């Protein structure tokens, strides 16, 4: 069984190492001190189990999990009890609250082993759709071993492309495996509007609207990009601006 330890504190990592030392069947294949390293290592080495801190530099634990994608078992290790609900929603194996003792650690490990032996597929949707009610303030995208962080304020628009969304920000585009509806659900509805079945636009980027055909219009963004606006999208837009 291969495990990875992800925590930005050296002492916390060494504590887990010590706990795992009693289990010769377990192979610690990587230790990471921040989210970027974790995403890279997990993509390359595909561990069976991840010990994951929540609050870390660069990427938090949930963002790491989102980028690694489905199929990995995770035990969250944190001093904050407030993430337990979210951990449950992303199907975490367990949630260890710092400080924890040997017994608690063993029972978490036992659960992970059971989950692995059952070969239960980890449910697929680990993405941002299971976010809490608060809106996203940034979107993370993985491109091979590279990670891009896009602050939502810098997101110009998003376009649905099959199973992916294309995110346009500051002249660049990024592809992320997510449905446009689940992206829409975690953006602030006062700033981002679904103007079309395939498009979400950042309202601050829209400079004008032009008629296109009887039922549709075109939104022109500040960088000159033109996006189609459906009738329903136009209604959503006017409803929002009318408030």
């Amino acid at each position, binding site marked *: 069984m291969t495990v990875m330890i992800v925590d*930005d*504190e050296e*002492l916390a990592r060494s*504590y887990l190492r010590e706990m795992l030392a009693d289990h010769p069947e377990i192979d610690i294949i990587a230790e990471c001190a921040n989210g970027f390293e974790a995403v890279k290592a997990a993509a390359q080495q595909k561990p069976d189990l991840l010990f994951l801190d929540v609050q870390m*530099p*660069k990427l938090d634990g949930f963002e790491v999990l989102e980028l690694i994608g489905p199929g990995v078992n995770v035990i969250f290790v944190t*001093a904050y009890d407030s993430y337990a609900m979210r951990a449950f929603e992303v199907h975490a194996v367990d949630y260890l609250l710092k*400080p*924890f003792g040997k017994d608690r650690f063993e029972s978490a490990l036992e659960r992970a082993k059971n989950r692995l032996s059952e070969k239960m597929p980890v449910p697929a949707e680990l993405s941002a759709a299971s976010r809490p009610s608060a809106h996203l303030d940034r979107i993370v995208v993985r491109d091979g071993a590279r990670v891009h962080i896009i602050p939502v304020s810098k997101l110009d628009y998003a376009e649905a492309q099959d199973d992916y969304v294309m995110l346009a920000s500051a002249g660049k585009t990024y592809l992320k495996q997510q449905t446009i509806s689940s992206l829409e659900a975690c953006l602030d509805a006062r700033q981002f509007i679904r103007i079309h079945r395939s498009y979400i636009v950042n309202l601050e980027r829209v400079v004008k609207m032009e008629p296109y055909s009887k039922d549709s219009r075109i939104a022109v963004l500040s960088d000159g990009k033109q996006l189609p606006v459906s009738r329903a999208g136009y209604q959503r837009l006017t409803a929002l601006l009318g408030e």
Partner: protein
Amino acid sequence: MHPIIRSGRLGVYLLAWVPVEGALTVLFVKQSGLGVPASIGAAFPLCVLHAVVCLSAWYPCRALPLWGKQFTRSLTTHLTSAVVAGGIWTGAAKLLFSVFSRGDSVNSALPVIFGMGVVLYLLTVALYYVFLAVEASQEAQAREAEARLLAGEAELRALKAQINPHFLFNSLHSISALTSQDAARAREMCILLSGFLRKTLGLSEKAAIPLEEELALARSYLAIEKIRFGARLQVEENIDPGCADFPVPALVLQPLVENAVIHGIASLVDPGFIRISGAMQDADRIAIVVENSFDTDSPPARRGGFGLVAVRKRLDARYGGRASIQAAARDDVYRVELRLPIDEEFKP
């Protein structure tokens, strides 16, 4: 609401008119040659009439403050009203006597009646202003008491928010990790942590402490975090020796230093710094600056102004507008500047 009609003062007010009734009676007996019972009878309706007229003086009094820009206007208004009220009273007296066909006999008393009417009206005006002044001072007292209460509450809330439970849990976890790896450091951390807690809990009862004491607290907090973060946390201090004794509200620096760790150091992969500087601006003002490096990629929302808001509220409640707190990010350094006046209560 009329201050006399309210709260049953009307009886007292009418009682105050008994001497006026007496004076009028004497006047009528002497000047008009009426008998005593007839004089009392004539004076009574006149008294009631003027008492009612004087009651109405309250409304212009309430509308026109006596002092300030409108002083002349208020004075003119009241004097004019007094003359009119006196005129009405005199006219009423003349009418009353005419009805009983003794119109001429009252003529010689009319100037005295007019004078009395004016003076009585003005006396009532003066009385109303006394009422108004009392009311205003009571209101001011109530406001002051409320402000004091709010300030106390804000302070208490601020103090309660001081000890961050996650700081405690993380520190305890570090100790737990150290016990098997480096028992001596585990012990050191236990001692640092107890020292910090003891100081924090003891402080919350005091209102102000010397800056040096507040800095000592920040130092012990950072020493604990240093064990957790290792080389990632660099601490610099740049305090003018002259401001060591300057009184500051207890735990005013703590949330700022805590923010610098949580939103600064903890967000960085590479080592970062926290720098605390303090200098006197003039004889009774101090400037304290907390700077820290932070990750420019993290969205502004995560730099968290929560502790900052609490500090600002606390300063507002304590100093009114005389203290300021400003926060700004420049390049990769976040800087919070605190400016505090010397606290009058703690002036040596």
